[in-house]
């Protein structure tokens, strides 16, 4: 089952309440997304840790229901 944009946003916001999130459905197939996420939770941590926070917010869906989500993160 593919994840919809709104579900992805909701999951990320639950974990990172101050996040600004822009998600694009790259192929129009609800399966390949890119997300730009800005959150103060990313301040002063490495890119690996930033992406891990996003993956954790998706509760194991990344790499499973969610096949491809390309992530760009930024602190604020």
């Amino acid at each position: 089952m593919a994840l919809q944009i709104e579900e992805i946003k909701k999951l990320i916001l639950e974990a990172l309440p101050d996040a600004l999130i822009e998600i694009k459905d790259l192929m129009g197939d609800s399966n390949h997304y890119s997300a730009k996420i800005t959150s103060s939770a990313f301040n002063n941590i490495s890119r690996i840790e930033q992406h891990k926070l996003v993956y954790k917010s998706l509760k194991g869906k990344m790499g499973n229901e969610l096949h491809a989500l390309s992530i760009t993160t930024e602190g604020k």
Partner: protein
Amino acid sequence: MNAVNQIKELIQKNDICLFMKGTPESPQCGFSMAVSNLLKHLNVKFEGINVLENQELRQAIKDYSDWPTVPQLYVKGEFVGGCDIVKEMFEKGELKTLLEKKSLI
């Protein structure tokens, strides 16, 4: 040898080690191909490990780095990132700097 020890040995033995789907010559996934091509572009020697050939390794590499996806790039035994991070580092010149610092370019 169990998969974790196999991973440790691979990243120790190969200064630049890319766990990927397929091989550098014949990648089986666009993200793996992207990272492999960046490394080729930088003209560095790297070892591509095809996780599709070994299901145990495919899961173990995700547990090892606490990272849910493949490809995964390791330099001198250290996890550098997946496709997004490696691409961003490449675009900002940071990947080249890292490899220079480790005397791999």
